[in-house]
């Protein structure tokens, strides 16, 4: 309905869309959020069934091309070294994330100044610090204060149990004199705000039936809806239209019945992640914006960053109970996070201790690697490996490069006929050197911890969790897409609050920083409501 005008239209109900909706609800404006997916029902998550491991390869698979729900859109990864993973629904990718929740470091905002590469952010850690704290409280973050690798912070809940696996690897780090610390985790270690605590189901990345994992469908959204935000599911935006003054006018979208509709809005906030946001912007071509909306810089869809990931596994004699507990959240080491040019690369990486697989995953991985045979010898080899493996994930900083892109696929479309995104991405030499260094150091740590054998795999292809950099923030309109508080340089009533805005990606999981950015943008909008478009 052309005469139905909402004050703020948010596109996407994931990590950032939920946060910005909750914060903007203070204004009592009419706020509507469009989400292309559905609400998920935790009783459907794989961990409610004995076959949870095989179910995780079905409707809750992390790869949308494999999952293939009609609420997903296809992604062309043919020319990418990394496959994009995500989830489309209320909560977005927080439904399937591991909830490892570190913040970017202060140095991550000053990469050009400190290391002479990439660009600095137009804001710094201190700008986001109060929003990190608010977000930790809203999401429910467990962790331990005092990590010397960060400015002081106080997670609202005590850390998750690190278990035998965490103790074992920690001893290895201690032998080497390296930094380690219990991970900040968006998983509640104690009952919190009406939610019961984590009971260590294990398969966090196929949805948390317990509700111990802090996905935004159970954190921000209930609050935002209570405060008046309207969330409409099964609304898939095709494009943003503009008026004669170059302002965003509204969106063309498809409803659940597949009908084309139009929604007028005074302000549009994009929260569709680093692939979905450039996809819509590039698909929003007009006479005024022939190269796509908000793209006078030519940088929409460019500078795509992931985090190149490798895994190093140590096999221990002692039982580590490694299939128990949150998969991705245990302890971490930032020993090699900051630049040391003597290593042969700039920037650094995070070592994230991951828990082990369930029995099916162990058996199949053992078959593929040749370590657990079928037939005679299966049981003995299985016993030696199951619950005896500790993994260190190497999560490398990926510097922005303009040839790594999200573009529109010329032929592939989603179920509504909207062009699919096409990913073009290759690893840099710097990333490869960093990963090689990380694999060697992780091997050293696991051997120091007492591992009998260590194996390494990487870079992993199905690892595109972190979608960053494709609509970067900056003060210079020729070198950035949005300004220092998320407003498009070109379209004064268009804002971006997702990971697209990242100038650099740091070496940590980005969800915490994405949400802090979203809260910061919302707060800045509230402070500037009287002259929001000046």
């Amino acid at each position, binding site marked *: 309905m052309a005469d139905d005008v909402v004050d703020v239209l948010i596109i996407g109900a994931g990590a950032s869309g939920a946060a910005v909706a909750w914060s903007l609800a203070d204004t009592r404006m009419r706020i509507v959020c469009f989400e292309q997916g559905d609400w998920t029902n935790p009783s459907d998550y794989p961990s409610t069934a004995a076959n949870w491991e095989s179910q995780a390869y079905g409707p809750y698979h992390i790869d949308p091309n494999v999952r293939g729900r009609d609420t997903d859109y296809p992604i062309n990864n043919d020319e990418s070294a990394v496959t994009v993973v995500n989830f489309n629904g209320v909560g977005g990718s927080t439904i399937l994330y591991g909830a490892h929740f570190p913040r970017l470091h202060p140095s991550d905002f000053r990469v050009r100044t400190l290391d002479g590469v990439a660009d600095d952010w137009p804001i710094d850690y201190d700008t986001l610090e109060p929003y990190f704290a608010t977000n930790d409280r809203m999401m429910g973050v467990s962790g331990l204060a005092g990590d010397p690798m960060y400015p002081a912070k106080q997670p609202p809940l005590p850390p998750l149990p690190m278990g035998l696996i965490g103790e074992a690897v920690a001893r290895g780090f201690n032998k080497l004199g390296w*930094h380690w610390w219990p991970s900040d985790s968006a998983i509640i270690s104690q009952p919190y705000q009406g939610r019961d605590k984590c009971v260590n189901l294990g*398969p966090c990345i196929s949805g948390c039936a317990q509700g111990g994992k802090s996905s935004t469908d159970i954190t921000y959204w209930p609050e935002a809806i209570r405060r008046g935000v309207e969330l409409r599911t099964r609304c898939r935006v095709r494009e943003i239209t503009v008026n004669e003054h170059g302002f965003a006018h509204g969106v063309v979208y498809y409803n659940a019945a597949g009908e084309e509709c139009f929604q007028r809005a005074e302000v549009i906030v994009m929260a569709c992640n680093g692939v979905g946001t450039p996809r819509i912007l590039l698909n929003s071509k007009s006479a005024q914006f022939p190269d796509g909306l908000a793209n006078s810089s030519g940088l929409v869809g460019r500078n795509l960053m992931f985090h190149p990931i490798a895994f190093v596994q140590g096999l221990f004699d002692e039982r580590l109970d490694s299939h128990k507990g949150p998969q991705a959240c245990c302890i971490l080491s930032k020993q090699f996070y900051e630049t040391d040019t003597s290593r042969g690369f700039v920037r650094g990486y995070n070592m994230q201790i991951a828990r082990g697989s369930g029995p099916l995953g162990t058996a199949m991985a053992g078959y593929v690697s040749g370590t657990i045979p079928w037939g005679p010898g299966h049981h003995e080899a299985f016993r030696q490996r199951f619950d005896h493996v500790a993994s260190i994930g190497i999560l490398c900083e990926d510097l922005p490069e303009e040839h790594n892109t999200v573009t529109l696929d010329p032929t592939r479309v989603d179920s509504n006929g909207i062009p699919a995104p096409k990913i073009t991405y290759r690893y840099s030499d710097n990333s490869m050197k960093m990963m090689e260094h990380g694999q060697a150091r992780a091997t050293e740590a696991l051997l120091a911890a007492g591992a009998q054998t260590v194996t390494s795999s990487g870079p992993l292809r199905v690892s595109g969790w972190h979608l960053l950099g494709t609509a970067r923030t900056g003060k210079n309109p020729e070198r950035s897409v949005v300004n220092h508080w998320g407003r498009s340089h070109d379209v004064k009533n268009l804002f971006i609050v997702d990971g697209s805005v990242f100038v650099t990606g740091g070496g940590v999981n980005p969800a915490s920083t994405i949400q802090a950015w979203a809260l910061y943008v919302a707060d800045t909008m509230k402070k500037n409501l009287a002259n929001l478009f000046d």
Partner: protein
Amino acid sequence: MADIISTDHPLTRAQQILLAALLDTLVPGSDDGAMPSAAEVQFDVYLLAQAEEFVPLLKSALQCFEPSFVDLPLTDRCERVREFSVSDPQLFQALLTRVYDCYYQNDRVRVQIGVVTGAPFPQGNQVTPGDLSLLDPVIRNSDRHVYRKP
């Protein structure tokens, strides 16, 4: 393999016998008797309840084995299965995935390997809290680990 009445069974009697031998080859019972063979964990029930779409592929896999397979000693059966795994690795991996999926859902198996029976939710798992005094060296050396100030 006898918990489904014969008229409902997706396999012929001959195929069932062949399948039992194949399952017993892929995952034999352990020598100490603690771990059952994969032929003892109701694969047919699993097939109908959780993997019905796999039945046509399973029939294709079974066609790769002669009826005499069932009478061979284990070492010879292993050799035949190995040949099959080389000639059609995709089908073999699909079969193995299903066999392991069924096997490691079995309560008797789970008890033996120390995994809770049934679904992880709602019972969950107990995880050792971990000894945070292990952090003492990190804290003592915090001047070496301090974050980099811009």
